[in-house]
């Protein structure tokens, strides 16, 4: 019996001792590693922001954490992360990168999910902000899209960020101002229908708008040609990209092979035959290798009258972003080539017979810079992470510290509510600014301040938003399928090549438009049929 007692005593002692470290551990900060979007590595010697954020979290919010900022190079983010995931060395919080990678991570069980109630409980202010986006005008309608992007099979997997300009067309028709002046076209009389558009292209080609007496001008560039697809409700990926899926008679059809695409190609072939399109339109005088991609060299150098290779912000006028603003990147190039007084004009999208117009637009929410959480993150840790998320959403001082650094040292506040950063992005990252980025849950905090700084106080974005609110500068063209199809990676390369070759042949007149059905058959058998079936299945599952 004595032996039994001693054993019992020892066991009791062991149990008490086992409790001691736990009691001590409660005072120890919880370690959270995070690998967000960074321009360069954090310099542990110079890092002043991360310790300051940790201190503020502890003192103001009672959250005791040790944040480990992990730098993963953006260029090979997925590759590096994948090796670390398999080696068990991946950080607790990392980027979803895209819907495709997000779904892959989920399928492979490397990221964790949680219930809506869990988020509501631990980050109530974030939840309220998302659900009552009413204060932010444009966000109000997007709550459903947000939920759709955040939830898989009833469980939440990611916190998407709102993109108030996501449903605006990114690119815009930019006309040469001098050519319009020469032809007596004003902003009001710019083409608003397909016929008017083709008519102006004819005048650009035949009425010598550059006034050099030579027939060396063309109507439009390959990007501007694509605007006509929008006039027929299509979002084309012609020349290298994947097209949008559209609804026709209740079925999902690719813009590549929809009946309307034949109509558009017919118009373009007709324009080509009349010489309104550059014979070398495929080789392109738009983006030129080695120079900035958005510059349309053909338009800037007076070969085309209109291009749609850039956004309004690329052709931003002087002084919009602030007194020192020298103008958008393409605008400055345009002025350098054509003279300081030269002008360009933003054009409306030409409308088609059904009143459709526009350019492909994205979704009002995005996950590319949103955080996901490692599958081995415990409920306890996730609760702490969400509490931090809530702290960023409610405490503007904390958010400014993590997002911008120390006032006067890393940024200054401007009168209009914007900030001016005092260092380059890489140097800011070195001192710890943006290190905690993914702990906001997305690339910005779910707060008024977060969105004001990212969008509404930014004059260049306000400028774009104002233009896109105008009728016919906005767009109707949206992709019906908002998720990556299972066979997309495998099949789109081939079907896109078939489409590009066929379109070019049709437009150049090398192939008769009577053979359109043969092209559709080729497209279908190369994988288009599988993709179309998958698109329809997906669509059916959503409605």
């Amino acid at each position, binding site marked *: 019996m004595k032996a039994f007692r001693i054993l019992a005593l020892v066991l009791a002692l062991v149990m008490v001792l086992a409790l001691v470290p736990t009691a001590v551990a409660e005072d120890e900060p919880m370690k959270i590693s995070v690998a967000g979007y960074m*321009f*360069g*590595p*954090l*310099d542990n010697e110079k890092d002043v922001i991360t310790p300051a954020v940790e201190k503020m979290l502890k003192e103001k919010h009672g959250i005791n954490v040790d944040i480990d900022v*992990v*730098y*993963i*190079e*953006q*260029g*090979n983010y997925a*590759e*590096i992360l*994948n*090796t*670390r995931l*398999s*080696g068990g*060395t991946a950080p607790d919080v990392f980027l979803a*990168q895209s819907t495709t990678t997000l779904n892959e991570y989920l399928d492979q069980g490397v990221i964790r999910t949680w219930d809506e109630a869990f988020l509501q409980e631990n980050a109530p202010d974030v939840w309220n902000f998302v659900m009552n986006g009413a204060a932010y005008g444009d966000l109000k309608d997007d709550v459903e899209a947000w939920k759709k992007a955040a939830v898989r099979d009833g469980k939440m997997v990611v916190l998407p960020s709102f*993109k108030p*300009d*996501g449903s605006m067309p*990114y690119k815009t028709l930019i006309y040469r101002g001098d050519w319009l002046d020469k032809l007596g076209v004003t902003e009001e009389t710019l083409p608003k229908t397909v016929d008017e558009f083709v008519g102006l292209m004819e005048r650009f080609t035949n009425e010598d708008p550059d006034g050099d007496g030579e027939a060396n001008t063309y109507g439009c560039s390959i990007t501007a040609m694509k605007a006509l697809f929008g006039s027929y409700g299509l979002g084309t990926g012609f020349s290298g990209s994947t097209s949008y899926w559209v609804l026709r008679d209740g079925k999902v059809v690719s813009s590549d092979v929809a009946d309307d695409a034949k109509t558009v190609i017919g118009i373009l072939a007709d324009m080509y035959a009349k010489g309104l399109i550059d014979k070398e339109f495929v080789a392109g005088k738009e983006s*030129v*290798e*080695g*120079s*900035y*991609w958005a*510059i349309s*060299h053909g338009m800037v150098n007076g070969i085309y009258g209109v291009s749609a290779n850039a*956004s309004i*912000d*690329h052709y931003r006028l002087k002084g919009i*972003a602030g007194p020192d603003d020298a103008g*958008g*990147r393409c605008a*400055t*190039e345009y002025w*350098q080539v054509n003279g300081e007084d030269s002008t360009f004009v933003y054009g409306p999208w030409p409308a088609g017979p059904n009143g459709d117009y526009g350019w492909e637009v*994205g979704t009002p929410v*995005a996950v*590319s*810079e949103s955080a996901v959480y490692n599958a081995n993150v415990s409920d306890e840790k996730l609760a702490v992470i969400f509490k931090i998320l809530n702290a960023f959403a409610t405490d503007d001082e904390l958010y400014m510290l993590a997002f911008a650094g120390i006032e006067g040292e890393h940024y200054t506040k401007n009168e209009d509510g914007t900030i001016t950063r005092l260092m380059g*992005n890489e140097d800011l990252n070195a001192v710890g600014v943006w290190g905690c980025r993914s702990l906001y849950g997305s690339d910005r905090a779910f707060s008024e301040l977060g969105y004001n700084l*990212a969008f509404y106080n*930014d004059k*260049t*974005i306000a400028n*774009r938003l104002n233009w896109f609110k105008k009728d016919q500068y906005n767009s109707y063209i949206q992709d019906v399928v908002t998720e990556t199809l299972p066979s997309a990676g495998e099949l789109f390369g081939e079907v896109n090549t078939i489409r590009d070759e066929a379109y070019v042949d049709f437009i150049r007149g090398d192939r008769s438009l009577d053979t359109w059905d043969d092209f559709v058959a080729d497209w279908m058998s190369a994988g288009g049929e599988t993709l179309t079936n998958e698109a329809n299945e997906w669509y059916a599952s959503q409605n």
Partner: protein
Amino acid sequence: MKHNRFSVGKALIYLFLILLCGSIVVAFWHLFNLSLSPSYIATRGGLLLWPKDPTADNYARVIGNRYIWLGYKNTIIRTVIGTVLQLFFTSMGAYVLSKRFFPHRTFWTLFIVFTMFFSGGLIPNYLLVKGLGLLDTYASMILPGLISAYNMVIIRNYFQSLPEEIEESCLIDGAGRFRIFLQIILPLSKPILATVALWLVVGHWNSWFDVLIYISDDTKFTLQIVLRRIILTGSKEILDTSAAANAAEMESVVSSEGLKAACIFVTTFPILCTYPFVQKFFVKGIMIGSLKG
């Protein structure tokens, strides 16, 4: 003096070589001019034959970047240590395999050559390096490639071409195998060792992927990683992720073409300079002076 006489064939050869050199020099010359150009000229594209509005700003920025110098240090460490160790171990292995009396020589040779064609793959390699506790160490850049099967076969073939009589005479004089290897075989094999060393140096200097995967400590990043970061920051590939989000931020992220060019110059110049010094070994005939004295 027949060989000095002009002939059409020779002229054509010279012409071809001049054009070939020209095609390489022009690219470097363009890059050099680009590195001296201010950003508004560099974004325009097109070939630059002379610098317009030359400026040293790009170089000042590159030289002012702390990571460039850290990168230099790390690259030099890995290149020097890596090359010496690799050369030593590869040639030792090659020496053993070059001996006819080595038991099961063919089996062992094939065993090593097998790794030339089949490798474990990225993730198993990562797990191995992690398991050995090499993550975030210089060893992770050097040890996994310590023996290169290809180089070993090349060196082995060279060793096999050396006459065995030399070694036999050394053995008679009382030298051991290791002394023979160090004092006879290695000095005789300078041309092949120099050739392989150059490959190794260039390989170490240019390699980046292992650093990307195995190293997360920013003070151990090599030059190519820094260079890559500066170059990639300006490419469309990265920009597209935020393309629709914020055009203003996007523009600020872009490194100018001039800056990229300056970076490329600063990082590749040293390795370009080593070529002429090693080149003489390439042309040296085998066995020169091996039996003198």
